[in-house]
């Protein structure tokens, strides 16, 4: 019996002990699981490496000009008198179709134009706020902060030109903030902030960059941007002053190393992908250039996420079902046929030496039986040639060919700043004449007497398809007359409607006349 008693006691105490051990699961056991490979926000920005990561993240939204289907260049090309939307049909891309005939409304305006820029602004705000506490070299720190301020200014400049009435946000949000009660401010307040950011940033930016730093913002870039901003605010004297620093002697080399490229066509060429370095990138004329690459091996899972690194204008502006029939026809890759060129622009460019670099007359090639293509929506036979994809540009790395074109996009170049300075000078005076002449001389055109109209016409010829024409027309007050046949309504279509998803739940008000 003793045996049995012992055994029972032993068994019972074992069980009690086991059960007791089991009750010990606490919060600590749940919280020991971690999220590997990430940084908790409160731990970031400790050193130069982490600040640099954040700086790269702040440069990332620059891809909005040429990257992804909803890119700024094809969208605003379609809004101008130089292009139609094009594409597969009237329903291919609600946004770009809507801006082409100005039927765009708060449901069809793609939200990414609002969101992507504000993401860039938040990244800049976070860097500007947290980098001062990082442990790193002070000059580098000031440079990072200056670059972030310049980028913030650039993103606000695009936002205020696109939407007009936007909120001004200068620090990052936290979960406890009242996220929905942020008001819009008058455009003048945005411009004041842009001017302040650029003016503060300029002294801390380098004069020139080289090697792997090409593409980073320099003093010249910030000044050119500031001059452009002043011009949009109609502060002509200030604009002329900034742009003069950037331009230097018309036709010569400026203090920042800027000089017009000898061959106009080289600005839009791309070397074959088999060559590791593309000599056409970062020419002497390039002031702010957005870098694209095929090395990210972008595939369709990136599409719409904002992570593909290729230039999407290439596939978008190529004709559909292109077939080459004769040896002297170009080796074009078929694409989606957006941004077909208006007959109006083609006629305007008739005798201009820049015509063939800018416009591909595929209708003529088809007539001559040298090539064939399948006309798509709003086809005119004329296609934008500056980003036309050729077979030697197809990526040889993994990833889809449509998403990996490495042609860069030049946001601001010297010819553009020459003409902006001429405009800021009122289109009169010897300096304005010299600037106009230099742009024309580059392509072998003779001098014409300078005037505002001459400068405007030269802008149209020089910058075809680079996404500037619509903004120029609005700035000059000529949008209503030039775009009336497309459906432009004055007092409404100078700015885009704020996407409905961005208004929901907030105190933001829709832009005038877009309320439906």
């Amino acid at each position: 019996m003793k045996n049995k008693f012992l055994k029972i006691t032993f068994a019972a105490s074992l069980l009690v002990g086991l059960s007791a051990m089991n009750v010990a699961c606490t919060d600590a056991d749940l919280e020991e699981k971690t999220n590997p490979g990430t940084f908790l926000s409160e731990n970031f920005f400790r050193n130069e490496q982490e600040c640099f990561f954040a700086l790269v993240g702040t440069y990332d939204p620059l891809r909005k000009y040429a990257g992804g289907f909803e890119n700024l260049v094809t969208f605003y090309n379609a809004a101008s008198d130089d292009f139609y939307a094009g594409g597969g049909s009237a329903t291919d891309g609600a946004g770009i179709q809507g801006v082409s005939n100005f039927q765009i409304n708060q449901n069809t305006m793609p939200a990414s134009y609002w969101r992507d820029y504000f993401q860039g602004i938040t990244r800049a705000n976070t860097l500007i706020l947290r980098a001062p506490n990082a442990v790193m070299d002070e000059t580098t720190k000031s440079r990072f902060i200056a670059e972030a301020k310049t980028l913030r200014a650039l993103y606000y400049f695009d936002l205020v030109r696109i939407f007009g009435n936007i909120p001004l946000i200068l620090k990052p949000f936290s979960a406890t903030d009242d996220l929905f009660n942020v008001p819009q401010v008058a455009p003048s307040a945005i411009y004041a902030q842009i001017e302040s950011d650029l003016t503060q940033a300029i002294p801390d930016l380098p004069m020139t960059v080289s090697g792997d730093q090409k593409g980073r913002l320099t003093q010249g870039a910030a000044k050119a941007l500031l001059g452009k901003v002043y011009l949009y605010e109609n502060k002509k004297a200030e604009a002329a002053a900034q742009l003069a620093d950037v331009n230097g002697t018309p036709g010569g080399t400026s203090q920042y190393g800027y000089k017009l490229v000898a061959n106009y066509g080289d600005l839009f060429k791309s070397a074959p992908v088999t060559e590791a370095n593309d000599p056409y990138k970062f020419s002497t004329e390039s002031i702010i250039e957005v870098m694209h690459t095929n090395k990210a091996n972008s595939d369709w899972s990136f599409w719409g996420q904002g992570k593909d690194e290729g230039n999407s204008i290439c596939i978008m502006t190529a004709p559909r079902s292109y077939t080459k029939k004769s040896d002297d026809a170009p080796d074009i890759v078929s694409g989606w046929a957006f941004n077909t060129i208006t007959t109006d622009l083609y006629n305007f460019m008739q005798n201009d030496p820049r015509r063939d670099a800018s416009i591909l007359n595929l209708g003529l090639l088809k007539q001559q039986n040298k090539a064939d293509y399948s006309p798509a929506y709003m086809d005119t036979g004329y296609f934008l040639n500056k980003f036309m994809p050729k077979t030697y540009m197809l990526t040889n790395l993994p990833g889809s060919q449509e998403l990996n074109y490495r042609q860069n996009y030049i946001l601001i170049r010297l010819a553009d700043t020459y003409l902006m300075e001429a405009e800021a000078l009122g289109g009169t005076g010897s300096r304005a004449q010299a600037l106009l002449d230099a742009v024309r001389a580059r392509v072998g055109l003779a001098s014409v007497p300078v005037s505002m109209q001459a400068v405007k016409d030269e802008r149209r010829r020089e910058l075809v398809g680079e996404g500037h024409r619509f903004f120029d027309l609005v700035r000059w007050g000529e949008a209503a007359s030039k775009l009336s046949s497309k459906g432009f309504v004055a007092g409404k279509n100078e700015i885009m409607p704020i996407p409905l998803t961005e208004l929901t739940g907030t105190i933001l008000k829709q832009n005038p006349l877009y309320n439906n």
Partner: protein
Amino acid sequence: MNLKYSKCLGLAAVLYFTANYSAQQRVSDTASKEKLIEEVVVIGYGTQKKSNVTGAIASIKASDIEAIPAGRPEQVLQGRAAGVNVISNSGQPGSNATIRVRGVTSYSSNNDPLWVVDGIVVDGIGWLNQSDIESIEVLKDGASSAIYGVSAARGVILVTTKKGKRGSLNLSYNGFYGFSSAARKLDLLNATQYATIINEGFANDGKAIRFQNPSSLGTGTDWQKQIFGTGERQNQEISVQGGNEKSTFFGSFGYYDQSGIVMSDISYYKRLTARLNSTHKATDWLTLGQTFAYTHQKDQGINANGEFGGPISSAANLDPTTPVVVTDLSTVDANMYSNPNIIRDENGNPYGISPYVNQEMSNPKAFRYTQLGNFNWSDNFIASVFAEIKFLNHFTFKSSLNGKKAYWGSQNFTPLFYLSPTYSNLVNNSLSRTSQNKFEWSMENTLNYQNKFGQHSFNALLGTGYYDYNIGNGQTITHTNLPISSYQDASFNFALPSENRTSNTWDNVEWNKASYFGRLIYDYDNRYLFTGTLRYDGSSLFGANHHWGVFPSFSVGWNVNNESFWPQNNIVNSLKLRGGYGTLGNDGIEAFRFSSFYLSGFNYTNGNNTVLTGYAPGSLANPDLKWETTRQVNIAADLKLFSNVNLSIDFYKKKTVDILRPIAIPGYVGVSAPYIANVGDMENRGVEVELGYKKNWSDFTFSLNTNFAYNENEVLSLETGTKYLDESGYQSMGPTQRTIVGDPYKSFYGFKTLGVFQNQAQINAYVNGNGQMYQANAKPGDFIWQDANGDGVIDDNDKVNLGSSIPKFNFGATLNFGYKNWDLMVFGQGAAGHKIFQGLRRLDMLDANYQTKILDRWTGEGSTNVNPRVTRDDPNKNYSRMSEWYLQKGDYFRIKLVQIGYTLPTDMTQNFGVSKLRLFITGENLFTFTKYTGYDPEIAAGDSFGIDRAFYPQAKTFMFGANVTF
């Protein structure tokens, strides 16, 4: 395992040590299962007599499952129990099913129920050999499932596998072999009809016609004939079971092979399974047991529900004027076939390329060549081990340890090909392989006390559990530009420069859960019944403010026929009334959603063409993030009538609050990932009826079991500031559904049409209150849009509710008939009360083929008031606007299974040592009664919420097979 885990475990090793003691005490086996004649139902962590069950539990036994041909195991639940809806996601072999218990519980991402197999929580039962199943119980109501706490809100399904029977060794074989074909095809236009309609589209827009002589084109290509073929299906399995007083065991091997009815060499599924279960009574008071299963799967699939490519959507959209194979290049534009990488058939002739329909569409026969080198595979190991100690007469202590390890991956070879000008791969071929693995384990300890004092019976349970999820990692490797051209020669062993070899590897984010639970079951004299449960769960998925939650429930019952006042009669033999209430949780979110992280991937390239890694703020932190809560009330009655009729009626109402959703924070906040918060409520209410009749007389046996369920779903609230959520975008049409307060989840929303304009006068007469024409740009033949809100303008505010995408009614019936050695089984199921959106035709492809419905288009005044004119430009948006014209009723009833079997007389078979030999023929999906014109009305009611984008349809199959028991 480190110290922390062992603290939560309770050392299993010690139990094995004590096994060596032989206790003298004899424990009387008051609950010995094999002595009970009463039907027993598995409830969470135990079993209960069916007559005493107070919750709503649907029970399916092995005998019901045996007749169902093997395929996806969860299909055995289809149509067997009211309130449990199983909907195939496609007819592709190996495709899983959507399971909903009592409607759509929540409108956050995951609505799948919790699967528990032999106490192991698993993601699904695709790996399970169907004939290993002993029983399946679905815990439908709050009271029965609350014991599973924070994971129980979407319903709990308990699967118990066979453990073996005491007695002599039993060997059995089951097998079948069958052929499948498409049950239904679409009615598409032939070449002449197509050319006529295309011409009309041009003409109606004022343009030149394309085809000069449509009738000369004849019938052209029937693309559906090119993709549909005969699929084969077979299942072979052997099982062994046996045991003595001390041990029982069950072992099985199974092989299942199915090839699809669409392009069967790139659409197939193979599965190999093995299992060993055993239990041992080591001593009178100690029982040990284990289950172990291994499954190997290999499959390949085509795009089973999508309009962006794949053989099915290509067959629906390609123009019939393109030949399948071009034998004479002079009949086509030779330039289209000049690329060296075009695909040719065995005779060297190129496969036809459409000059009109491109983008992702391609000649399916040519497309097939690009897919031959692709396949997916997986290996699953699922095991559990337990020890059970009975002591002091009434106590049972059970400790179980479960684990599962899965390895899976895929391999793909993409050759150089040119399928069309827009769909080609001309630069590099590529070979890629993805492998992943995942390990999950858990441990549960329970202490059970059972006793009876006079008329009072008690069964009390206390338990703890610890669960660890998602331990694992994965990698994917791609080699490009291999020096070979066909998938058969492809290998990762070719030496390639490093820029042609890329890889990506990741670690899984793990999470864990700890639980304490208890239950009390009490009955007085088998008349008054009570069950109460309580579970306390803590999960690492939730924010610091809400790690832990409490989930209580109770249910009561009354066996009225056991009362003394119950008059014995032949009409109502038994009557039980029951009701209950429970609170359950839903933890279906990703880990670490409550924290704010800096995420990478926001890259930019530097001047030397190096892609630099960029980081940006991910989201905002939400320390208040917690689970969703579902509260359910259930009231029911179970009756047995006329000795032969069983009737059960359940009424339920369940409300889900704190639904987890990525809420739209304003874009100006500038974070790159959505912010998850608990917002929103939804409710489901319904009735379930199960009616069965059973009768035997002389040599005949007959039974009919039917079930019927009605469910009403209503969204009660969304996040503040949101009037509705736009859902289910369809190409460029935009959203076709809305989730809006007061309507069911994902209801169809669009424009109503008042008919078709027959003439210009009608257009001019359609004016608003101010006398302005509503549709000034319309032409005769265009739709008349309704100004639903009366504001004088036709715009998106005129979208109205056009119907529900979720069926309101689900029903099933099984008829079993037997005569001597013959048996007949007929099973049918159906659904009704929902609409299906037919989105087969690509809107942006103006030259895509049409269904024959287009032949009823408007051709002139008075021709039709239902269909608009054919137009390509479509300024009135007849085709590009979401309207009721795109919707059809989805009601259907399908004779799913018909099986005729013959069991050879035992005296004949026993001469060969065979105790039972049954031969059978089965027909599956024989008849479908429906008005829906697409491929298959069943699939639309599942995960795709009524949007048919060219589903891979289910097949009609005939199988013949045998069951042999030795």
